[in-house]
């Protein structure tokens, strides 16, 4: 990984880091032992394997035991070297950051930001003959711009493959437009508001909703997707008109087409390593279609088919652009990014969070100015069910779930978004 971070238009921290790890999973009978090491020279490999075998001893059988997946053949790129992000990766984005900083200084705007380029390769091999390799490269850039008195703030972020699609001037123009909107300020009270969520916000809510989509939890009656008298809510229309899918081949946000994990939990199983990940419809036109289901749970319950988790999320939308939605607005709040989302009640999927770095009052098709930030309490399921307009889906960087950079989402118009109290943060 190569990264650079800045504040007040000057670089603060930065770095280049190499990371490697080897996870060895040994299966003895139905017991499994896992060891992960970052130091594994050839003369230690035998020792690491023996450690993983020893870890199987004196423990109960793994509840998720399933026969390993089998396959034949070796990927053509199996012997290719690992993808790396070396110091030269700075060449791709340092000049762009420099231009952004110069433009910001010239414009009297203070910027605070971060850019990184990551390259990674995973190899998966099993004693049953399965071989998989996936190389990945992803970058991201995010910038917060503030007026010199720090009273007004705006944020923008995007994921990228190689930074060729990052336009610093465009990014800063967008931020400056929002700072300019904030020259007029209106204080608003807490309450229910019609809101327009920018795509980053929609993506954050989709990630929050997807975190509840675990079949085992639903079957056990401990999930918002548990049916009241047993079973799950699959097949129920809970999300209004929203559609949420995952697809490892989605352009711009492609991800590994097979499952790989080092430990098991209620959503993943080490015994499913190598399982193909295909396009999955989680929610289709408002109806819950799928919940994450490891093979063992599908087998144990005899219901459904295995559904591996997702490396990306796509909230569908072929409606109007954000600008068109603003122009079509009578009165609403434009929310540009969310922050600090946490689960409050798993029964109802109620989460709390805040607006951050830019909430604007839109009236009669015009942005009238900035308003204060809010704390909100809202289930993402309820929010999606109240979507009365779905805009055009696009690449979106979730701000809260920054470990989930691969998303596409549209702007959404939500009829009644519950702003629980005022936040004076600016």
């Amino acid at each position, binding site marked *: 990984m190569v990264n650079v971070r800045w504040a007040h238009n000057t670089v603060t921290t930065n*770095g280049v880091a*190499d*990371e490697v790890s080897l996870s060895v999973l040994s299966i003895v009978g139905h017991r499994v032992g896992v060891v992960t090491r970052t*130091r594994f020279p050839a003369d230690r490999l035998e020792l690491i394997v023996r450690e993983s075998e020893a870890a199987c001893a004196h423990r109960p059988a793994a*509840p998720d035991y399933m026969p390993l997946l089998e396959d034949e053949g070796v990927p053509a790129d199996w012997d290719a070297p690992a993808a790396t992000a070396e110091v030269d990766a700075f060449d791709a984005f340092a000049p762009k950051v420099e231009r952004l900083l110069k433009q910001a200084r010239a414009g009297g705007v203070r910027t605070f930001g971060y850019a990184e380029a990551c390259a990674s390769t995973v190899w998966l091999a099993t004693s049953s003959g399965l071989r998989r390799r996936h190389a990945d490269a992803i970058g991201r850039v995010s910038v917060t711009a503030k007026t010199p008195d720090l009273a007004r703030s705006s944020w923008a972020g995007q994921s990228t493959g190689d930074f060729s699609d990052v336009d610093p001037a465009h990014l800063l123009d967008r931020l400056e437009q929002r700072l300019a909107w904030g020259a007029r300020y209106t204080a608003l009270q807490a309450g229910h508001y019609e809101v327009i969520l920018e795509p980053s916000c929609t993506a954050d809510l989709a990630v929050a909703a997807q975190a509840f989509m675990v079949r085992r939890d639903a079957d056990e009656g401990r999930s918002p997707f548990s049916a*009241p008298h047993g079973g799950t809510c699959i097949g129920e229309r809970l999300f209004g008109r929203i559609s949420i899918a995952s697809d490892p081949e989605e352009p711009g946000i492609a991800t590994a087409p097979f499952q790989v994990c080092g*430990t098991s939990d209620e959503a993943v199983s080490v015994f499913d390593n190598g399982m193909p990940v295909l396009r999955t419809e989680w929610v289709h036109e408002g109806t819950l279609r799928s919940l994450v289901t490891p093979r063992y749970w599908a087998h144990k319950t005899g219901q459904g088919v295995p559904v591996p988790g997702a490396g990306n999320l796509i909230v569908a939308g072929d409606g109007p652009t954000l600008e068109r939605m603003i122009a079509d607005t009578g009165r609403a709040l434009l929310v540009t990014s969310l922050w600090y989302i946490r689960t409050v009640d798993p029964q*109802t999927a109620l989460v709390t969070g*805040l607006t951050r770095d830019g909430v604007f009052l839109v009236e009669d098709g015009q942005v009238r100015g900035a308003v204060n930030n809010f704390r909100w309490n809202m289930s993402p399921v309820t929010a999606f069910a109240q979507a009365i307009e779905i805009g055009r889906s696009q690449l979106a960087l979730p701000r809260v779930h920054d470990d989930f950079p691969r998303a596409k989402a549209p702007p959404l118009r939500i009829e009644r978004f519950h702003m629980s109290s005022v936040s004076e*943060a600016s």
Partner: protein
Amino acid sequence: MTHTVIDPAFLSLPFEPIAEAVLDRVRRSGATYADFRFERLRRQTIVARDHELQTSDHEESVGFSVRVVCDGAWGFSAGVDLTPAGAAHVAMRAVDVARRLAPLTTEPVVLADEPAYVDTFISAYEIDPFSVPDEEKIAFLLGLNERVLLSGLVDHATSDVQLVSEQKFFASLAGSRIIQQRVRVRGDLTAVRIDKSTGAFETMGIAVPPAGRGWEYFASRDEFLRRANEMPALLEEKLASPSVEPGRYDLVIDPTNLWLTIHESIGHPTELDRVLGYEANYAGTSFATLDKLRTLQFGSPLMNVTGDRQVAHGLATVGYDDEGVAAQTWDIVRDGVLVGYQLDRQMARKLGFGRSNGCAFADAPEHVPLQRMPNVSLLPSPHDVTLDDLIGSVDDGLYIVGDKSWSIDMQRYNFQFTGQRFFRIRRGRLAGQVKDVAYQSRTTDFWNALAMVGGASTYVLGGAFNCGKGQPGQIAPVTHGCPAALFRQISVLNTAQEGH
């Protein structure tokens, strides 16, 4: 018996020759400052779900990093190749990074002075958790689950332990050579009760804090077993309890809940890097700006808060921070007034604080040290104020136990917290549980509503393993000691109503 020996497996690693090679290389390259950090980090997570072992893994990472100042700019590089050639590559890469980014740096990096040290530090623990057989750990967790499941009042139980052992070697151009070994553990148990007739369910956590201790924390088991024994009946009562009426209440907050409020509303806003805007794009900034130092009435005069990296069994306790600064203890809030911040060497110099108070930390060898939170603790009353005294001082209120959901805004004004258990207080006595409670406030309003502080008998070291900050993201372990305390007229929400 407290450990007094550094793990020989760490001492056998070639950190000293690598350090000397790296530092010599960067010195000859013109670095005006350089430090070298070599780490071995072992982690184990074991999870038991109901009657089964869900997962158990062992992870060991070994790596090193170099941080330099060249041409007035930082350069950081980390690697895993423990050969002389690998070390030289990482060293020169750090210099290369600094020189490439120097044109983007408008404020040359200068650090506050700190003596050089040659020393060894070992945290206070008795039993290395990695010396304990896995079967003992697994039996402990399955035993906890069985204990609550056998009650017949719990439908599901999940327990887990996280065990960490950390060794660091720090060397600097200035001559420091420091070896440190720290151990920390956390354990948890969550029970779920489902009303089959309605589908309603409730959860409850055990509310035992993590600690800078070894396996002895679990080996005695008394605290875990006592709390596990209490949980089923408490959970059944919670599921059947009335939903809270929203409004303003006097709150007696147990230290098992209050530590997290301290963390979010005192710990983070007094991080000087936030105050200066370094986290504006990610973790956020702070309302406790420099102009408010020594003038802001952060809380009532009963409020005294210290920062430290020295308390025994603290999760942020060290001998030296990751810039080679010796551990210290200092005031952050005195008699309710903001009087201190958390510093690293660059900020201490820039703002004229003189010396850093030692708050630099990196969570892994591949990460750059940032200003991270020390142990931040609310001091108990010097008087013998008991929990009964606090509850007895409330006519109509709530007693809140255990942490659960937390959220706070980007400048640390507006927060909302829930908990594990909420007991009504009527006329000075506990009067059964209520549910669906969240308390919401503005930081300085909340702390100025502090009306009574419990004494030493109510004091507990709480904390977390996973305080998040920075880009790329890092986590940090941190302790917050606090007594139980009484806050007057705090806004309480009904979360069920909020959801509709």
